[in-house]
């Protein structure tokens, strides 16, 4: 590995998917499959490099700094990789690669338009680039640029989805732009007080700033900005439509990862930049806590109302993002560790559930839970993965969802915030209700699944009517998501103590 010098790892991880995204339409001119392969290859290379990078960070025990163009920090842009974002980068590149793999059957079904599918892969790769950059950067303005790359590619992927896709994307565009502008305003205020944009430098210089109204205003802008981007409760309006109508193949990435990374950026600002000793920090955290509690209850209750599979998952996401914000509001070690663990575990759970949703759509055009009757006889592996992922969402012990909630509860008890513990338990029960309703329809409902969706397929599988599982390239991501949920659950103490502890203790 020496020929790729380890010093350039942080930037290579971001640059390689970017190259894939740019090359994809070009290569597709020569051969339709080449562009797709370039993107999948680039994402897998990026994933392997990100594991190397995480290993280096965990081994050395301190943050990795990369100066872009060799310009030293207060003047240049830097990438900072520590335990928390190291593992988030692994998550993003892994799910990115899996989603690219997952998409290929969808595009093969649409053979008439090779260039259109090249556009799809290109946008997907841009989305991954933006998310990776967003998690690596140590510069506040650079973060804004990456946030807009993520948002713009997100609008594209939502718009090419189902019939209502363009309008969901348009509404998200309007709301998302307000969010980004609010973030930019907050950064502008901090810049006017300190004269710097580098996050580490900002943290140092903000200690000397005693203009409290300015800092509080900046914090309010940042909460609104990140709140819109991560769909925190009163600012979630764009989310259910966008997550339900996005392109089914890209939906796992959008629903699972795109709303988690702004949550991570929120952690960067509120724990690494602002001084946690400030008197109004407690008020801000309480406000975030109230938003989180209301969001958790609202999301879980709303999810009960719908019988459209994607809508249930989208509203459940509003609740789950609330958990992450709740962890920040608790603000001690267990709270933050629980929040970061929940970013990881919920990313796998929700991505996996949207994989199953896309698999049902791909094979049987199932959109509503009523249509799921007896589908497990036809797609046993997908349904098995669905059960594992849903049990993890509810929070049963061997799976990842239980442990992140466990850490959150530990943190809340340590702080004496018993309201938060009660909310955690109530929302777990509510999510049990809506997932068991899906189980009931799936395992005990009347048989509603008819023949495979297209005539061609029914001819091809005329003899083996019993099992019509999805193709292998869709099955692998579904299974990996389920396995990762189990692995994260079993390995939670390594992640919390081995990877996160150093960084989180460093910022408290």
């Amino acid at each position, binding site marked *: 590995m020496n020929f790729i010098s380890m010093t350039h790892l942080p930037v290579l991880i971001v640059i390689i998917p970017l190259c894939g995204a740019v090359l994809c339409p070009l290569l597709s001119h020569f051969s339709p499959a080449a562009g797709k392969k370039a993107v999948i290859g680039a994402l897998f290379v990026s994933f392997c490099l990100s594991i190397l990078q995480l290993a280096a960070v965990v081994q050395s025990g301190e943050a990795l700094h990369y100066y872009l163009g060799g310009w030293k920090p207060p003047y240049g842009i830097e990438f900072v990789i520590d335990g928390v974002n190291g593992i988030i980068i692994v998550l993003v590149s892994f799910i990115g690669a899996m989603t690219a793999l997952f998409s290929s059957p969808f595009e093969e079904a649409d053979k008439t338009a090779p260039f259109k599918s090249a556009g799809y892969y290109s946008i997907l790769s841009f989305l991954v680039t933006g998310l990776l950059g967003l998690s690596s950067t140590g510069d506040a*303005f650079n973060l*804004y*640029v990456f946030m*807009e790359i993520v*948002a*713009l590619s997100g*609008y*594209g992927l939502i*718009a090419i989805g189902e*019939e*209502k896709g*363009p*309008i969901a*994307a*348009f509404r998200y*565009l*309007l709301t998302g*732009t*307000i969010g*980004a*502008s609010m973030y*930019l*305003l907050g950064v*502008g205020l901090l*810049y*006017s007080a300190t004269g710097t944009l580098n996050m580490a430098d900002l943290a140092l210089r903000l200690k000397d700033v005693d203009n409290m109204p300015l800092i509080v205003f900046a914090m309010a802008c940042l909460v609104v900005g990140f709140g819109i981007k991560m769909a925190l409760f009163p600012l979630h309006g764009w989310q259910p439509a966008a997550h339900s109508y996005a392109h089914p193949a890209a939906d796992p990435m959008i629903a699972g990862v795109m709303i988690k990374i702004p949550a991570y950026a929120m952690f960067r600002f509120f724990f690494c930049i602002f001084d946690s000793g400030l008197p109004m920090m407690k008020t801000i955290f309480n406000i975030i806590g109230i938003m989180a509690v209301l969001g958790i209850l609202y999301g879980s209750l709303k999810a009960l109302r719908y019988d459209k599979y994607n809508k249930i998952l989208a509203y459940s996401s509003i609740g789950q993002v609330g958990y992450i914000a709740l962890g920040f509001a608790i603000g001690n070690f267990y709270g933050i560790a629980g929040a970061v663990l929940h970013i990881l575990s919920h990313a796998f759970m929700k991505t996996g559930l949207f994989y199953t949703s896309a698999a049902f759509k791909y094979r049987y055009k199932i959109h509503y839970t009523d249509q799921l009757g007896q589908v497990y006889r036809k797609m046993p592996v997908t349904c098995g993965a669905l059960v594992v992922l849903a049990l993890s969402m509810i929070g049963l012990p061997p799976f990842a969802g239980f442990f992140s909630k466990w850490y959150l509860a530990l943190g809340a008890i340590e702080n004496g915030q018993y309201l938060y513990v009660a909310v955690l338990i109530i929302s777990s029960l509510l999510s049990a209700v809506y997932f068991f309703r899906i189980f009931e329809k799936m395992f005990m409902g009347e048989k509603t699944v008819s023949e495979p969706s297209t005539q061609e397929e029914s001819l091809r599988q005329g003899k083996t009517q019993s099992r019509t599982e999805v193709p292998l390239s869709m099955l692998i991501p579904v299974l990996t998501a389920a396995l990762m949920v189990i692995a994260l659950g079993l390995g939670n103490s390594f992640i919390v103590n081995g990877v996160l502890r150093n960084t989180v203790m460093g910022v408290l």
Partner: protein
Amino acid sequence: MIDIIETFLADKGIYMMTFILMGLGILGMISCGNYMKKIMCMNIMQVSIIFFFLALGQKEQGTLPVVVQNLLGADAYINPLPHALMLTAIVVSLGTTGVALTLLMKIKEIYGSIEEEDITGKGWKK
């Protein structure tokens, strides 16, 4: 009285204008029924942020941050960084507007209208 107003405007006028513009933009995005108008209001809001940053870079008697004959002290030049940042922000807002207009064309194609009422009438809420 005139003096007070003048000092206020000189001190905070630009910031007031920024926030009025921003408020107008967001209000318009919420209240306008026409999607084209919503995009225009979005642009107004983005311009207000650009104004805010550019105001940070200005100083009295400052000149362009370019060496013409001989190097002056740092006091003599305006801060070029906000201008550089806003160049990027303008590019981003151009991109956003482009995507928004493309989406608008697609919406017009599907629904035959870009009025909120016509579109919500066709079962958006379901």
